[in-house]
C-alpha cells in the first residue's frame, strides 16, 4: 500500500487489468499506455494484482455506475423525477424504472421523498441516471422509496466502511436493538428503528465514528453507547 498524488504513474500490469476509482489509462505520443492516478489517496490492489483502485476520503460525491445511492426527490421532469444525490448535478429517474411500473401504474412520489436507487448511467458531461430495480430481473432488490426513519450525512469513506461486513459499528448496534439501515455510497445513510431514541443513538454513533467527527474506535463507541439512553 502506498500513497499517490494525482498524475503519478501507477505500476499496474495484468493481462486482465481492471481499474477502479481514481485510476485512468492514458495514451501518450510514444504509443505507451501508462496508468496514472487522478486523485490522491492510498493505492490498493487485489491479491492477484488484477484490480487496482485508490482509496481516499471526500465529501463530494461523483456518481459511478452500479453504485447504490440515497437521494431526495426535487421535482418532476417529464416522465420522471429529478433526484438530488449530492453530486454536482441532479440525477434523473424514469417513472418506469420501478418494479411493476407501467404507463398506467406509476409509483407515487412527492417532492421531498427519499429514494434508495442504483446509478444506472454516469457518463461524464451528462446527467446521471438512476433506477429502482434490476434491469434484468425487473425486481426491486430492496430499492425504492424509503419511508420513515432518518438520513444521516457522513463522509464518503464512512459510508463505504458501513458497507464492509467486517466493520464493527453496525454489528455492534445490531446486537443492542433491531435496526434497518440503507447505506448510500454518496455519504447518506438511512436508519430506521422502532424507537426515536434508538435512531438518535445510531445517528450519533455514525457521526462519532466518522473521520469528519471524533473518529471513535470500537471500545470508545461501546462506552459512548453505554452513556446514551436507549
Amino acid at each position, binding site marked *: 500500500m502506498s500513497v499517490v498524488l494525482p498524475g503519478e504513474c501507477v505500476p499496474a500490469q495484468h493481462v486482465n487489468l481492471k481499474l477502479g476509482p481514481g485510476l485512468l489509462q492514458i495514451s501518450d505520443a510514444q504509443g505507451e499506455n501508462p496508468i496514472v492516478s487522478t486523485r490522491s489517496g492510498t493505492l490498493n490492489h487485489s491479491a492477484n494484482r488484477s484490480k487496482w483502485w485508490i482509496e481516499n476520503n471526500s465529501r463530494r460525491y461523483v456518481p459511478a455506475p452500479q453504485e447504490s445511492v440515497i437521494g431526495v426527490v*426535487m421535482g418532476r421532469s417529464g416522465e420522471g423525477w429529478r433526484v438530488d444525490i449530492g453530486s454536482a448535478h441532479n440525477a434523473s429517474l424514469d417513472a418506469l424504472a420501478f418494479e411493476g411500473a407501467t404507463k398506467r401504474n406509476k409509483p407515487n412520489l412527492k417532492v*421531498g421523498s427519499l429514494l434508495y436507487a442504483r446509478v444506472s448511467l454516469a457518463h461524464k458531461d451528462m446527467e446521471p441516471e438512476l433506477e429502482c430495480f434490476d434491469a434484468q430481473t425487473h425486481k426491486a432488490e430492496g430499492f425504492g422509496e*424509503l419511508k420513515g426513519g*432518518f*438520513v444521516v450525512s457522513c463522509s464518503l469513506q464512512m459510508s463505504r466502511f458501513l458497507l464492509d461486513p467486517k466493520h464493527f459499528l453496525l454489528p455492534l448496534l445490531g446486537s443492542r436493538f433491531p435496526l434497518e439501515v440503507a447505506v448510500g455510497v454518496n455519504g447518506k445513510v438511512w436508519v430506521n428503528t422502532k424507537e*426515536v431514541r434508538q435512531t*438518535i443513538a445510531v445517528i*450519533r454513533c455514525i457521526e462519532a465514528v466518522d473521520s469528519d467527527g471524533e473518529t471513535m474506535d470500537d471500545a470508545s463507541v461501546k462506552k459512548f453507547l453505554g452513556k*446514551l439512553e436507549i
Partner: protein
Amino acid sequence: MRPPSPSIPEKEFTYDALKQSLRLDGRGFLDLRTPSINFGPELGWVECAMGKTRVIAQVDAKMVKPLPERPFEGIVTIHSEISPMASSDYELGRPSEEEISISRMLDKVLRRSDAIDKESLCILSGQRVWHLRLTIHCIADAGNMLDCACLAGIVAFKHFRRPEIEVIGDEVIIHDPTERAPIPLAIHHSPFCLTFAFFPDPSTRPVVDPTLLEQRLSTGLLSIAMNAQREICVLQKAGGIPTAPDEVLRLVNVAVPLVKDLDQLVEARLKEDWQERKVEIR
C-alpha cells in the same frame, strides 16, 4: 441557490423527536454546543467553532482622519464575508435574506451596542483616530452561524491590542510592540448573541442554538443579544410564527445564565491565552 428543504422523513423524524423532548445531537432544549475558541499567533485573530459551524474573526487597526461630524470618535467597521465555502447555499455577490440578516445583526450586536469605547480611539481630535476593522470569515455552516460569528467578533475585539501611541504637540509617535506593550481596547461590555428556534407544533418548546436541520425546519428564529450584566442589547424576531410576550420574557430569562456561562468561558480562554503569550526573560 435556495437551500433545498429537508426530505419528508427527515422532517417528520425531527418533529417526532422534538415532541418527545429529544434533539438529534443529544442536547437538551436549552443547551448550547460548547464553543471552542482558538487564538492565532497574532493578537485579534480568533477561530470560533460551535459543533461543525466555524467562523474566523480578525481585527486590525489603522490611523485615519475622523468623520467631520464626529471628530472625537474612532471608527469601527465590520466586514462579514459569507462565501460559498461555508455552504453551497450561499453565493458570492448575491446575498440571500439570511446573509443580510446575519450581517445586520453583527452590526447591531458588535457596533451599535456601543461595546467599544469609540472616544478612547481618538488620537488627535479632528485629525487622527484609530479605525478598527473587524473581518469575519464564515468557514463552515452547520447551523446558527449568527451566534458563532457574534461570539468570534466580540472575542476578537477583546483579544486585540493596539500599539501604544504618544502625542507631543501635533506629533504622534507610535511605539513598536517590542518597545512598549500594546494596550487592549476599552470595552464597556461584551454582548453575546443567542438564537432560539420555534417550531410549528405549539406544544414543542423553542430550542436554543439550532442546528442546520432545526433551523431549516423552524418557523421562526428569535435572537437575543445580551451581556453578562443582564442588559439586553438587541432582540430580533424577523417574521415567523407570532410569539406571546410571556414567551419572549421567559426566553430572555433562559438566556441570562447561558450568557453568564459564555462570558466565563470567554474570559477563561482569554486568560489562558494571555498566560501562554508571556515570555519570561532572565
